[in-house]
């Protein structure tokens, strides 16, 4: 009977470990992966926007070479703020899409100012009619340079794949069911309390064990990722994208490492308390037994 009881307790602790892990993942989705503010914050702290600016300038320099139109005509038409706002719009759009709040659409830059500047350049330099007919196309090309750099997530290129849609569905389910993971965790702990009703300190032992085991499941991969410098090894030669991915990966690792350490410390605390209480209870029982023996003698 006792063995069966222990087996049941072990299974509940095992489930509790997964429930705690799910809870970490679910909160990770809410506060990190599916949270636009997280991306805006980490990208803002990194060199992402200054690199985007350089890359756009570079694109304009190339367009200037191709079209023989001075680079300033393009670069003076777009402000840093407009690029940042476009990038924010894209992040919000991607967030909404992943959360099934709407369809994803890559935001477009307003090319009116570009067009007007180009038109002014044509008028000032009294250029031929052929360039005039190309103004819309050139303004569109310049707009595309900005748009391609301001879109961190290219959802449109992966949305058509069923694997991505499955991934999206799973993420959304995990994101949506945070409360469920908390409730399941609470119910499992309640089961442990009920089973160990006569010796409640053991609940601390099992809950602590589950906390430590679930924390190891996130701490170990994080330590490996840090050790192997995964965030620094992306084989991408677009500097802004590389920096963005590095900042995002480090943000993810940071989350799992901190929640893992928190769970680990709480688990250790449970174990220490259990150890003290158990020792005290045993000493108490021993003293009682000795007293009883003495009085019997």
């Amino acid at each position, binding site marked *: 009977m006792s063995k069966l009881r222990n087996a049941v307790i072990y299974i509940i602790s095992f489930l509790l470990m997964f429930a705690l892990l799910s809870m970490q993942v679910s909160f990770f989705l809410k506060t990190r992966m599916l949270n636009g503010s997280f991306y805006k914050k980490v990208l803002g702290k990194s060199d992402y926007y200054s690199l985007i600016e350089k890359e756009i300038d570079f694109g304009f320099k190339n367009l200037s*070479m191709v079209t023989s139109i001075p680079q300033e005509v393009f670069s003076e038409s777009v402000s840093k703020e407009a690029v940042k706002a476009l990038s924010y719009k894209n992040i919000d759009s991607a967030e909404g899409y992943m959360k099934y709040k709407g369809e994803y659409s890559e935001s477009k830059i307003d090319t009116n100012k570009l067009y007007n500047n180009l038109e002014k350049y044509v008028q000032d330099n009294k250029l031929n009619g052929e360039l005039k007919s190309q103004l819309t196309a050139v303004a569109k090309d310049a707009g595309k340079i900005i748009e391609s750099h301001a879109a961190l997530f290219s959802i449109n290129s992966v949305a058509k794949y069923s694997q991505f849609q499955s991934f999206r569905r799973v993420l959304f389910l995990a994101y949506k069911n945070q409360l469920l993971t908390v409730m399941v965790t609470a119910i499992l702990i309640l089961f442990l309390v009920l089973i160990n009703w006569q010796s409640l300190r053991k609940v601390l032992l099992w809950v602590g*064990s589950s906390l430590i*085991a679930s924390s*190891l499941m996130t701490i170990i991969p994080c330590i490996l990722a840090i050790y192997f410098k995964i965030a620094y*090894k992306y084989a991408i030669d677009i500097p802004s994208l590389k920096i963005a991915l590095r900042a995002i990966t480090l943000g993810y690792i940071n989350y799992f490492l901190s929640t893992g350490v928190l769970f680990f410390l709480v688990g250790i605390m449970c174990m220490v308390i259990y150890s003290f209480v158990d020792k005290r209870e045993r000493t108490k029982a021993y003293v009682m037994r000795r007293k009883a023996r003495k009085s019997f003698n």
Partner: protein
Amino acid sequence: MGRKLISKGKSRKKSGMGILFGIPLLLFISGIALISIGSYNYLKSAFYISRLFIQDDINDNGKLKTVSSNIDSKKIVFPGFGDKFGDVTIKSVDLNVPVYHGDREEELLKGAGHYNGSRFPGEGSNVVLAGHRNSVFGRLKDVAKGDTVIFNTTYGEYIYKISEIKIVKGNDTSILQPLDTEKLTMYTCYPFDYVGNAPNRYVVICDLVQGTPLKELMKKGSGQ
């Protein structure tokens, strides 16, 4: 009796520690085992896919490391994508431009870009170079048939003679096609003084006059 009690106390302490460390460890190991068994195929695929994006043979600039070999006790470097690997000189028009492997914006802003889908000098096929008309290839408009073009690469010098100059449509890809004999094709946008997206391409085609075929260089390199 005393010793028995001490050893009993020690073993109880040991089993207590065993429980404290053993249960979390056992839970962790069984959890990892379950995850591994349940998602082995997914993990395997994820690992191989991740190898596409996370590479160890990447240098600090995010580029693949270049391959080098020793030929005639001289270190010869074959270029990686985006690397400079030579210079093109046409003395008759005072043109001297660096050549980079690849013809993306990055390479074209620095010099002439070697089209990745074409061959390297010495490979016996079409070597295609692109450049901007208002920077590196601006002087192409002054070249004439019979002019000498010297392509000095990191692995040897190749001398060509201009055999044909033509103007093609911007979307004409025939100039990029592989050939049975070695030719150097240099092209830029045309008209040279056009403002806007130029509709045509100015193409200069050259025949190989002198240069060691790459096959021979490779043989020397491998000591055959």
